């Protein structure tokens, strides 16, 4: 066991919304220094990737992504739309995934050829100082995929349960199953776990399953900040950003921080930075915590990496439920998303390559670390990758660790 793993007392997961790897971090591969690639191990963009538009014209990726309201339509990320993005125009069996359907998929919403091209935009790294700093300072996963080529709720279910119980959409039928949530597993074993939602106006996406029956598992973001300061953070924490713009206390304004299109991406940057600072600001907590920042799914935005096949979780979605005319056996992952593991025991510039991660890894890691793997769970979760081996023996010098300051 490494020193970093031996010291680990807390795992914190911050799950953001609806952005693909290439959209947020693909531009890092184009950064040069002294005429050479600065980050050669990162599997980002070459700048030549393209998708055909509805006229058949190739649309090349562009560093034109903007913070807010650029994508006037929330890009389709439901199961049939994502299927089209991954497989292009191909139908039926024997298809080969090619990531060539993003522009055509967005055109079905925009009905405007020029607007449909915006799905290929990515951020210049300097526009995202928090995410790119964390990605290049700690461990960036080259191959973390959403669990299902589909929308939010079923993907988030994999981070809570290690399965979506056969759902590929936004329905919540996974009540009373024999596989408990990671929170239930922890509480039953005498450990501590909490979901911190931003505030009551934003609340949680885990409503029926958790909010109604297990309110003791919930806290607000201000409680998270307080728990970090006082050293009362639970063994496992899951943080939800603000999901809507709404009035704040004393006439203030709360901006959505989830980065879901078309919410402001800069506000999400500040939220990620604040979560990081809250942990980093308490020395004892900092050296005993691993923070994972990960996105739930790609939000319909372009990524160039074909999602791999995976171990099925034992469930099957019928053709009538997928919307594609074909059943789905949960044997392929969704589109790649940004994921970064942060700890002072992670060497600077770590890039995790050649290993496949998805959201079922989260309950797997937490169950293995805190519960010795003792819980009922799917074959898929049990067989998923783990990431705590990334914690080394050596704690980095404090002067080598970034701190975020929030300007005007």
């Amino acid at each position: 066991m490494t020193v970093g793993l031996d010291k680990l007392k807390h795992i914190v997961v911050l799950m953001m919304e609806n952005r693909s790897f290439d959209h947020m971090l693909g531009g890092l591969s184009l950064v040069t220094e002294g005429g050479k690639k600065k980050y050669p191990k990162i599997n980002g963009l070459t700048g030549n990737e393209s998708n055909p538009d509805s006229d058949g014209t190739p649309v090349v990726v562009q560093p034109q992504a903007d913070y807010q309201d650029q994508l006037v339509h929330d890009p389709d990320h439901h199961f049939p739309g994502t299927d089209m993005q991954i497989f292009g125009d191909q139908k039926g069996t024997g298809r080969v995934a090619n990531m060539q359907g993003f522009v055509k998929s967005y055109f079905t919403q925009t009905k405007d050829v020029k607007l449909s091209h915006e799905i290929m935009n990515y951020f210049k790294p300097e526009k995202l100082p928090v995410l790119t700093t964390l990605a290049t300072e700690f461990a960036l996963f080259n191959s973390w995929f959403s669990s299902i080529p589909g929308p939010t709720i079923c993907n988030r279910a994999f981070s809570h349960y290690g399965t979506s119980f056969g759902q590929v959409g936004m329905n919540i039928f996974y009540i009373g199953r024999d596989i408990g949530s990671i929170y239930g597993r922890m509480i039953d074993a005498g450990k501590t776990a909490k979901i911190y939602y931003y505030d009551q106006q934003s609340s949680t996406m885990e409503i029926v399953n958790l909010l109604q029956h297990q309110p003791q598992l919930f806290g607000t973001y201000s409680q998270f900040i307080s728990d970090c300061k006082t050293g009362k953070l639970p063994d496992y924490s899951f943080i939800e950003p603000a999901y809507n713009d709404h009035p704040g206390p004393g006439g203030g304004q709360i901006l959505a921080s989830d980065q879901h299109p078309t919410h402001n991406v800069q506000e999400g940057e500040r939220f990620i930075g604040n979560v990081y600072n809250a942990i980093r600001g308490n020395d004892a907590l900092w050296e005993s915590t691993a923070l994972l920042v990960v996105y739930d799914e790609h939000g319909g935005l372009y990524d160039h990496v074909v999602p791999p096949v995976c171990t099925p979780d034992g469930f099957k979605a019928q053709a009538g439920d997928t919307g594609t005319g074909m059943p789905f056996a949960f044997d392929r992952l969704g589109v790649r998303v940004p994921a970064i593991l942060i700890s002072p025991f992670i060497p600077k510039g770590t890039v995790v390559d050649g290993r496949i991660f998805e959201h079922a890894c989260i309950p797997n890691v937490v169950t293995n670390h805190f519960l010795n793997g003792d819980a009922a769970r799917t074959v898929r979760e049990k067989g998923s990758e783990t990431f705590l081996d990334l914690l080394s023996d050596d704690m980095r010098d404090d002067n080598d660790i970034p701190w975020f300051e929030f300007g005007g």
Partner: protein
Amino acid sequence: MSKHAYVVTVPKPHHTAYNPDRPISDLVKNQILHLSVAEQHLDTHHQSGKDVHSIKTEREASEYIAHLTRKLHAKETKKPQTAKKNKPARPRPARPSSKTNRRKKK
């Protein structure tokens, strides 16, 4: 002056970024639909009486979400300790969105 040696400055969003009158996304729409299912487990006098299909903006959604979150937490907090000995009320499964969609079409 910061006590940290390695500082990264993060700009804040433009002052026009705040838009609570933005139409709700599919995600928030589903969140309030799920909450409306949970609302059915509240005593009648605690229910909002709100037709969730009339919620169009993020401001309206946040008001409904806050109301239900408070009520649902209060409901669980007020449960007597002995309640655990009784057979817990079986939660009704969420209705499929197809049904809520049918309502919407009316």
